[in-house]
């Protein structure tokens, strides 16, 4: 039985890593634009959403490059025998990107609560809306 060759798995894992963060950021960007479609009449809210989206997109670009270039040369990701190849400290890279992702997640799930608080609508409607938005926790 030949020994286990992880190369193919590693190549695909690299591809998945590159895809993963832009997906998250695009979804968040979509949610933010959606919210500014809903609550955009208020200038202050629209500006807040815009700035959050700028931060979100910048994070997407930064993390994309950090993940893509985590090892140089790139083939070092799946072929650790390459001489002179080196990687960043991946533990720090993964933990910090995850921390940023979780932070923006929480901000985005919390935003509707903040916006709804200032809305002048009947209490029942407010709770109904709150429930709908909190479904996003799924």
């Amino acid at each position: 039985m030949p020994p286990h060759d992880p190369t193919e798995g590693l190549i695909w894992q690299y591809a998945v890593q590159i895809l993963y963060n832009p997906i998250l950021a695009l979804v968040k960007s979509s949610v933010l634009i959606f919210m500014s479609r809903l609550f955009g009449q208020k200038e202050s809210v629209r500006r807040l959403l815009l700035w959050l989206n700028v931060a979100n997109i910048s994070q997407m670009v930064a993390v994309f490059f950090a993940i893509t270039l985590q090892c140089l040369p790139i083939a070092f990701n799946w072929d650790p025998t390459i001489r002179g190849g080196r990687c960043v400290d991946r533990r720090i890279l993964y933990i910090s990107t995850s921390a940023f992702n979780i932070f923006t997640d929480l901000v985005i799930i919390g935003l509707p609560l903040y916006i709804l608080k200032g809305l002048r609508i009947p209490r029942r409607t407010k709770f109904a809306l709150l429930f709908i938005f909190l479904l996003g926790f799924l």
Partner: protein
Amino acid sequence: MATNPGTTGLQTFALFVNFFFPALALIVVSTRAAGRLATHKFGWDDWLVSIAMLMSIAETVISYFCEFRPPPFLRCRNQLLTAR
């Protein structure tokens, strides 16, 4: 790859996660897109989430192909190399 780790409960669970959540997302996203199209209100947010959905499907397929497929079908590296 010849070593077969065997199917454990964890692997089955991983397969479930790999397909269930993207499927759930696909249902929600397509319902939403259909609604927006029907009312002629397809906007930026819909474009972004649709692109994200396509990428997510790609990710699901990739995850399945080389991490979960049984050994006889594990030829993804060759396919990748010939595709270039």
